[in-house]
């Protein structure tokens, strides 16, 4: 149950499922991507060893993060990049604002950064008279529609092309009814090209940052990060402190895994390595905590910080595919979102670890081998202990525990349950029973196994 009175995952997922045709389409699109991922993984010799290596590198990184942060900062400065540290979202936003204000800049172009989405950067800047345009096509569409991205890699995977056409018609003046993806993309290309050419500031995210050399890598298919950055006077990179990797050569491992895990491509079209400012340009990098050191302190959950934001877990998760990213009411949705969000706000996101059947598919596709489904199970224990489980649930669980601890109580309950189901089925087969809404109840056998065994055990032994 999410705490603020807004709908929880179950309620939002129920809404999403009202349109079964759309669910099938959404589910099919993401499953197809999962299949592309499988194909490329199977075509990569040593795939499982690569995952293991990536996992080990990130484990080592997190266990020596202090030293690597200092090394990274030192190298950034040597490269001429200005370094900032932000404890939380507000401080991050303040830093971005102050950088822009110092140059009297009131327009910025941004490439994909889930971190800035988490921090609510665009809204913060808008309130202070600075306009930000998201240049990634999917994020641009979502921005026009005033909706957050539903997937960290495929921001508008939940939208049909007709809906996107309608958004373009309303905001960019395209012909009504135009929905051809190529034509729509060309319109966006023209429009955003002008944005790149006229904006003096660009902000990017960071896919990987190398402590050894003080450089960072930004991966895109569209080239939007580079179009913004190389035309800018001021370039800002926002980065979670966990995005570091120790050495340059480790990029080999991660860049071989990232795009394959995400969308079944051997590499993103652009893997841009930013190291020093262009002549006449200012470069800034903001290192952000915003709850990461707290997650680092959680022995059971710190592994989630290894995440390289590929989105593979979302593509494989049957619950995600059949409920949509927006049902998770969190910037990062899906399985990884469900193990990161309770650390940020346990009350608000107490429902997320329960939005899962613990099937384990996510853990298998994770390129850095985060045992996501194990952490979902562990978060459930924490959430109940902290008191965020619904009261009725706690009571029924206690009753169940009592019944199952006593053989006699169990036999009585079993017999009673079966009797009710058989003779007073209307008490169970009704609208109040959620099982019954779209499923029949199991048939009632004439006796339990216990009862059968008691009658027949001598006969069985003599056979």
């Amino acid at each position, binding site marked *: 149950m999410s705490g603020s009175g807004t709908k929880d995952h179950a309620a939002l997922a129920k809404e999403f499922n009202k349109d079964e045709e759309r669910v099938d389409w959404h589910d099919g699109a993401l499953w197809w991507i999962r299949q592309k991922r499988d194909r490329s993984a199977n075509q990569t010799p040593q795939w499982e060893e690569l995952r293991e290596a990536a996992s080990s590198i990130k484990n080592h990184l997190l266990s020596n993060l202090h030293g690597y942060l200092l090394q990274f900062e030192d190298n950034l400065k040597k490269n001429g990049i200005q370094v900032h540290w932000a404890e939380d979202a507000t401080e991050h936003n303040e830093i971005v604002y102050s950088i822009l204000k110092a140059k009297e800049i009131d327009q910025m172009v941004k490439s994909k950064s889930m971190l800035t989405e988490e921090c609510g950067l665009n809204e913060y800047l808008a309130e202070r008279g600075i306009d930000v345009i998201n240049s990634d096509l999917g994020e641009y569409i979502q921005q026009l529609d005033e909706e957050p991205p539903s997937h960290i890699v495929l921001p508008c995977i939940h939208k049909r092309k007709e809906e996107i056409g309608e958004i373009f018609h309303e905001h960019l003046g395209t012909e009504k009814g135009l929905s051809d993806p190529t034509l729509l993309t060309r319109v966006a290309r023209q429009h955003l090209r002008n944005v790149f050419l006229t904006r003096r500031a660009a902000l990017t995210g960071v896919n990987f940052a190398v402590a050894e050399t003080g450089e960072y890598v930004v991966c895109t298919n569209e080239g939007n990060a580079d179009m913004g950055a190389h035309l800018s006077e001021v370039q800002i990179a926002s980065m979670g402190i966990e995005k570091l990797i120790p050495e340059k050569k480790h990029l080999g491992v991660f860049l071989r895994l990232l795009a394959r895990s995400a969308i079944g491509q051997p590499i993103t079209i652009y893997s841009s390595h930013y190291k020093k400012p262009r002549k006449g340009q200012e470069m800034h990098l903001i290192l952000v905590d915003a709850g990461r050191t707290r997650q680092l302190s959680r022995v059971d959950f710190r592994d989630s910080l290894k995440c390289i934001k590929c989105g593979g877990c979302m593509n494989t998760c049957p619950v995600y595919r*059949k409920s949509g990213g927006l049902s998770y009411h969190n910037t990062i949705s899906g399985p990884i979102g469900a193990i990161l969000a309770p650390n940020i706000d346990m009350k608000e996101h107490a429902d997320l670890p*329960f939005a899962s*059947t613990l099937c384990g598919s996510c853990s*298998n596709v994770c390129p850095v081998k985060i045992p996501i489904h194990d952490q979902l199970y562990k978060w459930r*224990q924490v959430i109940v202990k902290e008191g965020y489980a619904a009261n009725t649930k706690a009571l029924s669980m206690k009753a169940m525990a009592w019944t199952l601890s006593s053989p006699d109580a169990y036999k009585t309950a079993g017999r009673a349950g079966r009797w009710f189901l058989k003779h007073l089925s209307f008490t169970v087969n009704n609208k109040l029973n959620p099982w019954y809404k779209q499923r*029949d109840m199991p048939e009632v056998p004439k006796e339990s196994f216990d009862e059968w*065994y008691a009658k027949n055990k001598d006969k069985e032994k003599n056979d």
Partner: protein
Amino acid sequence: MTTGLFIPCYVNQFYPGAAIATLRLLQKLGVEVTYPAGQTCCGQPMANSGFEHLTQGCDTLFIEHFSSFDYIVCPSASCVLHIKQHLHSHKHQEQATLIRSRVYELVEFLTDVLKTDKLQARFPHKVGIHQSCHGLRGLHLGKMSELVGPKFSKQEQLLNMVDGLELISIDRPDECCGFGGTFCVAEEAVSVKMGKDRVTDHTKNGAEYITSADLSCLMHLEGILNRNKSAVKVIHIAEILNSTL
């Protein structure tokens, strides 16, 4: 070799046929099976809901009933996985640890311990295997589709020994059915959608029966099949392996 039979709570109450088939199948294969009366539950429903701390009673009862056996066999992959991963007791830690290494799901017991290579079984029908997540990703009863590696399936291995049985292949061999414990009612809409999709995968590929090592999955799929008046039936794998139609 002493073998104790563990019958999960809901199998005991609602699917005694599968329990009886398990018992008879093991006996046919020469195993002397003891069914300790008074057993109840593995505690999984509470633990998966975040109430692991309430399962001490269940755990103690389980240890009391099963610590004397060389092997413990159970026709439910999810219960076996739960015991393997979570059985604990402050008072009887050694016994708990021992039990965790001795508990087997039925299919893996046949392939790995008994090393069964033939069965006197006949089931002349088209059968689709629903690979339960706990059985597959938990107990490794087969190759997981996400991982790169050699293909294998313990369930297929056994079903191939059944006369007349035709295994059908489905589009998504290991997608979750959506039961998930309390998930099936707490997230009813998604749970049912997941179940419907599994059912459709089997029916469109010609299954007459859907089988699994987990009755919780089958109970959920059966609920959907029956509500939609389908001719397709669910059946626990023990009942197929024990079948002499």
